[in-house]
């Protein structure tokens, strides 16, 4: 119904009332800009939380050498059971275990009565600890760097890092600090996504392959031995051997704050090859793996177990000589996550110990989606106000421009031409406002993330939605005034003063 000519007429009419047009466009722009900014903040928060979940290790899988508990060949799911909790809350074993021929042994696998200090040791199995039967497994050094290399080839695996851990005296001049030493792989910073290097860098793959004596200090350890001065380029000593400090690592995460005694930042990182060379070792304590997607963790865990059993030539009836766990539970339990965040997670999820990672991230997703919806709702109100502003202007226009409508009708405009003109004017107003609003929203989102460090994400979908909403508002709020305009009687309109 709207030809190009009608569009030209509408645009000309808008040009005649510049101030009115400009003010209406500004109103609309504020509405659309607000919507876009709010959506950007909401989805940004969603992405940030996802990021933090990964940073806190929700996609982390740790393979530890040895197996402090024997599992039956029918593995019951990664050993996610906390012994004492299970003992108190659930004395009756779950049905699947009952099917097993050796019931007491399976119960042992689930928990050991001696783990609970309050337990009376008169249990029939108390004298028969399985660890005694499987002697040596609990402390076995069974993982090698070849295992780690093999794991790098698995599907769904993102990064793999070797690990050797010790407690160590870190010395610099006359300052000493008792801390953790991690011999690790150059890829560790990719796994610890929240890491940031306040000064310097991580060691390089070249330094790793040569087994160089280079060290990266955790922020806490660095502060203890160097105070506030920059440790990069200085020398520290480990095992009375000189090491050159190449970097200091800290965190951007608000979930994990560096503190004395924590494993990540009260620590020293050196290449695992250096540890092997200096201490004449060849095994690893553990291997850290990240799954490419958080939802894939359980599957990757199973794959890892399968591959390592194969490599270690473990026959079907024998238990694993390694343990595969996820970091998420440890992080939550150890308070690596901020107390309030952990509380929120625990409070939202019943039976945290049984919860899967997928459920956990879904809970957080839900929370942020609620926030996005709330923000978008607030913004929608401003959009509505913008739309009513357009309607107001258009209605006023119809009254103010009655004579113009009469003139147009006299020279041959049909009622529908007048209607199209007014609708197009409204749509043009709202679209112009929409485009300006989108630009303003982009700038605002940019500014928020730059100056307030809020994370914002603007998706093409959000932009399209904003344009669509702007046009819809124009048509919706322009339709009634346009109808009024088209209904005016030409003779009355011509006489209108």
């Amino acid at each position, binding site marked *: 119904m709207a030809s190009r000519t009608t569009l030209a007429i509408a645009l000309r009419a808008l040009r*005649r009332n510049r101030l009115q047009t400009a003010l209406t466009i500004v109103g609309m722009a504020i509405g659309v800009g607000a919507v876009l900014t709010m959506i950007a903040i909401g989805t940004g928060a969603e992405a940030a939380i996802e990021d933090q979940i990964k940073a806190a290790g929700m996609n982390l899988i740790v393979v530890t050498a040895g197996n402090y508990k024997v599992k039956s060949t029918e593995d019951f799911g990664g050993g996610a059971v906390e012994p004492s909790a299970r003992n108190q809350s659930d004395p009756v074993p779950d049905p699947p275990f009952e099917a097993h021929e050796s019931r007491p042994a399976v119960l042992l696998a689930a928990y050991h009565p001696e783990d609970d200090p309050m337990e009376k040791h008169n249990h029939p199995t108390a004298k028969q600890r399985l660890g005694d039967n499987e002697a040596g497994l609990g402390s076995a050094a069974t993982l090698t760097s070849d295992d780690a290399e093999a794991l790098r080839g698995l599907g769904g695996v993102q990064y793999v890092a070797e690990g050797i851990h010790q407690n160590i005296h870190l010395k610099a001049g006359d300052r000493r600090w008792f801390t953790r030493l991690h011999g690790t792989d150059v890829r560790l910073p990719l796994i610890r996504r929240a890491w940031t290097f306040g000064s310097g860098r991580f060691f390089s793959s070249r330094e790793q392959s040569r087994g160089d004596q280079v060290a990266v200090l955790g922020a806490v350890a660095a502060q203890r031995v160097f105070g506030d001065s920059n440790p990069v380029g200085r020398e520290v000593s480990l095992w009375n051997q000189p090491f050159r400090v190449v970097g200091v690592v800290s965190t951007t995460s608000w979930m994990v704050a560096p503190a004395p005694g924590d494993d990540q930042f009260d620590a020293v990182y050196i290449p695992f090859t250096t540890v092997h060379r200096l201490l004449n070792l060849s095994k690893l304590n553990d291997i850290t793996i990240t799954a490419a997607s958080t939802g894939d963790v359980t599957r990757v865990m199973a794959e890892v177990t399968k591959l390592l059993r194969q490599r270690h030539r473990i026959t079907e009836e024998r238990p694993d000589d390694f343990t595969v766990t996820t970091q998420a539970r440890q992080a939550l339990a150890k308070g690596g996550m901020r107390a309030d965040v952990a509380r929120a997670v625990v409070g939202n999820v019943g039976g945290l110990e049984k919860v899967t990672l997928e459920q956990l991230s879904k809970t957080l997703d839900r929370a942020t989606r609620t926030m996005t919806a709330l923000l978008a709702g607030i913004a929608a109100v401003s959009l509505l106000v913008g739309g009513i502003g357009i309607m107001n202007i258009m209605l006023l226009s119809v009254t103010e421009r009655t004579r113009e409508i*009469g*003139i147009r009708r*006299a020279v*041959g405009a*049909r*009622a529908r*031409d007048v209607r199209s003109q007014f609708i197009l004017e409204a749509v043009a107003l709202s679209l112009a406002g929409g485009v300006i609003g989108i630009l303003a929203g982009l700038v605002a989102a940019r500014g928020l993330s730059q100056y307030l460090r809020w994370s914002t994400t603007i998706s093409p979908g959000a932009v399209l939605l904003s344009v669509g909403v702007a046009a819809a508002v124009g048509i919706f709020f322009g339709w009634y005034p346009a109808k009024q305009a088209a209904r005016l009687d030409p003779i009355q309109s011509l006489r209108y003063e």
Partner: protein
Amino acid sequence: MNPGDPALIAADEITKTYAMEGAPVHALRGVTLDIRRGEFVAVVGPSGSGKSTFMHILGCLDRPTSGRYLLDGRDVSHLSDDELSSIRNRQIGFVFQGFNLLARTSALENVELPLLYENRMRIAPAERRRRAMAALAAVGLQDRAAHHPNQLSGGQQQRVAIARALLNDPAILLADEPTGNLDSRTSIEVMDIFQRLKDERGITIILITHEPQVAEYGSRIIRFKDGRVVSDHANTSRRAAAAELEAVALEPARDV
């Protein structure tokens, strides 16, 4: 021009009744008359005599309550609103007392307005401008094309309105009190334009006025009273605007 020609306008027992707050108002009580192509008809009468209502019906702005109106042989008394719009666009040009130009719009854009509503074919913007410029030149305002109405004098505004009315080459030019807002000299200028349109281009002009002196410029004078035609005669002593303009130029102070 030839008396044997079929009438351009044939009104047959046209009545128009308005319902004003319950009481019906009979604006036209049966008007029958023919107007032939090329006539310059002056319609006079006191206010409320029905002459404006008659003009609205002739201009297809309104429909008669009863009776028949043939425009160029076609019965238009019961056409739809869209069809009437299209007739207004192509066959009728209006000139009003209040000029009725779009404010804050250049003379050129005002003049090309009817072409924007030409629905049979799309006219390119360049062609619209060309024709609008030609129409402005015809009323001597080619150098005022970019002026807005508030930058033009009353006479110039009315000439812009005439240019707009003539743009689509209408069969009829309907002028409703075109000199009502003009001083006497400018009024004569407008009448001069009308007489030349009649004489040179054969355009049918229907001029509504309540001033008998202005009606004297027409070639036929129809008098309305109480919704009826009370007299209808050819004006043999037609005033010649061109000659008067020359006289006024010699004696500028004299009021005509």
